[in-house]
């Protein structure tokens, strides 16, 4: 039977421990909404197993710890909370997310961070296909996606803004093809090497400028703060930057 235990810490932060065993996603999310409405700001979820849309409709100042495997669309359309997952996440985590943070102590499925508008996602290990696609940006509102391992095909497809980083830690080389296909904004940073045939026609490999190095350093330091390891060691290997070769890759495709 599902259980909720509400606790109060010394600093007056009220937290709730929720056993999600066997709970239907809709009931779980309704419970989270009502707990937050009661003033609880820290939610600890145990035994999560496939429940979708966790944190989708929760306000900004909430912290959520998930033990288990949340279902698809974790934090879809999310606007603010910080979600830490002790386990893997399924497809479409951070879908069209507006603001907030997801930290995954494990790996992620396909279309991670699709159409992300802001906030950041950190994944310790590898991720699936079509991650970081159509990420967006306006001025300083810029989403960041940091992946410890590598990604599958179509990474950063249609990217219109934001930053996506592959650290290439672990044993798997970068095998993705069609990286950055149709990209027209933003930047992809890859630690390690990729062959030209792995890239979409719309991106080119650029040298790292000091501003790029600084941006990557900050991201790596945060990655290490979440998952451990040595930032210096990670940063000692060379990075490449992928950027769109044209802001208008399809501008000449049409008859006037």
């Amino acid at each position: 039977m599902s259980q909720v235990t509400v606790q109060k810490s010394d600093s007056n932060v009220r937290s709730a421990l929720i056993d999600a065993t066997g709970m239907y996603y809709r009931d779980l999310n309704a419970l989270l909404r009502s707990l937050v409405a009661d003033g609880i700001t820290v939610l600890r979820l145990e035994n999560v197993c496939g429940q979708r849309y966790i944190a989708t409709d929760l306000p900004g100042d909430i912290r959520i710890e998930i033990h288990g495997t949340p279902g698809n669309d974790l934090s879809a359309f999310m606007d603010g909370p910080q979600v830490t997952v002790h386990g893997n996440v399924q497809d479409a985590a951070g879908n069209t997310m507006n603001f907030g943070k997801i930290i995954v102590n494990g790996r992620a499925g396909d279309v991670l961070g699709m159409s992300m508008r802001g906030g950041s996602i950190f994944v310790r290990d590898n991720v699936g296909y079509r991650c970081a696609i159509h990420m967006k940006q306006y001025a300083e509102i810029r989403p960041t996606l940091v992946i410890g391992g590598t990604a599958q095909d179509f990474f950063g497809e249609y990217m219109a803004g934001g930053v996506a980083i592959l650290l290439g830690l672990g044993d798997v080389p970068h095998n993705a093809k069609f990286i950055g296909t149709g990209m027209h904004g933003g930047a992809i940073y890859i630690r390690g090497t990729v062959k030209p045939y792995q890239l979409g026609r719309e991106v080119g490999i650029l040298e790292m400028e000091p501003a790029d190095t600084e941006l990557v350093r900050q991201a790596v330091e945060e990655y290490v703060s979440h998952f451990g390891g040595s930032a210096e060691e990670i940063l000692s290997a060379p990075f490449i930057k992928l950027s769109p070769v044209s802001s208008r890759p399809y501008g000449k495709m049409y008859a006037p």
Partner: protein
Amino acid sequence: MKTYVQPDFEVVRDKDKCIRCRVCERQCGWDVHEYDSEDDLMIDWGEKCVGCQRCTVFCPTHALTVRSYSGNYRPNANWTDDRIRDLYKQSESGGVLLTGMGCDRPLKVYWDHLLVNASQVTNPSIDPLREPMEVATYIGGKPDSIQIKDGKLATRIPPQVRIDIPIIFSAISYGAISYQTQESLMRAASELGTLCNTGEGGWPDSLRKYEGNTIVQCASGRYGVDKEYLKRAQFVEIKIGQGAKPGIGGHLPGEKVTDAVSKTRMIPVGTDAISPAPHHDIYSIEDLSQLIHALKEATNYEKPISVKIAAVHNAAAIASGIVRAGADIVAIDGIRGGTGAAPKATRDNVGIPIELALAAVDTRLREEGIRNRCSVLAAGGFRNSADIVKAIALGADAVYIGTPALVAMGCALCQKCYTGVCNWGICTQDPYLAKRINPELAAERVVNLIHGWTHEIKEMLGGLGVNAIESLRGNRLHLRGIDLQQWELDVLGVRGAGT
């Protein structure tokens, strides 16, 4: 490269009437008219003219006539002038032909082959000028049954949105149209007690005051989709397809991506906003269900969720899947639906007319016993109030209109929306052109048009002896077909005239 393309239009100027006031020169964004100060006369470069008729309307002395180019190739039923022009254009550019507005080919318009009934003797007709006539309806899913306990409704009713008239303004995105045009449509929707769909280009903050009359879209590009966008709208529509370009994503040419549009869409200035063809989180009906419920979660189950598809060959089966996936509204957009930019080959050849798709969808949902679970919105080529009456009789809860509202504001269907140059200020982001739309005056024209149509709809309803639009919905016995083959009558579910 020397162009072989013959002009589309020619400009005829009555030199006796022309007073050289240069209004035409200022009104034309295509630089067709030029003043020659040495000889004090106006020169017209007809080959640049797109036929928008802005200059002829604004010429104070009616000195101008814009008409189709009078030169022609040797007449040939197969190789028409238009086809030859297209070949020249492509052989000079190597590009895809782009166009705007809806399919202009002479496809059969089934509305013109459907006739509406009227009461004579046996069932009294109603006089809508002096008797109550209800044209409001509620958009949203309806339960299979209801239970009353202790005199109170015990069944949870899915969220409903009331519209005072069965006419909603179609999805036309900011970016495609000017800010002023979107504001005009929202303002008109507000005055009419109906809704306006933002399209997929986001919802500028300063227009969110019209939240009570706004539908927002969640399309494959996900432009402008933030939490507030979803929560403040009356309903959220997942755009899968569009009648003008089924199977491909939205397309906003870079010329129209200004800083303000870049902010709303969160893409770089000047870049082409080409939405992905599919939603990459939807590869199946099950995935569609996932996004429908993601949006329901994001809006706390307080808003109906719509799914809009283009009218394609198997629209009926797809619509069944959409309803079973949990959508509260199914919107279907036929081949004549408008667009700001689409490849001409796609616009003119892909999809089917809304009349056939609507009838097929309504029939299928009824046969499966799930028609009540959704509202059906029909879109794509409604030209007048009679078309709307026929659509409702075929099974629509309400219709989406786009082109008629733009024409009310001045649009003359020149089909150059994709260029960003619109002398009427509608389909442009050029501030000099866009300010030609005054939202107060443009909204008034749209409201006038819809008031006229509403009176006509009431007259036709009254003539049928029906006093509520909801009583007409799906009532195909009020229609008869004329000049239709048996298969067409079968698809439409109507009997031939005289039977």
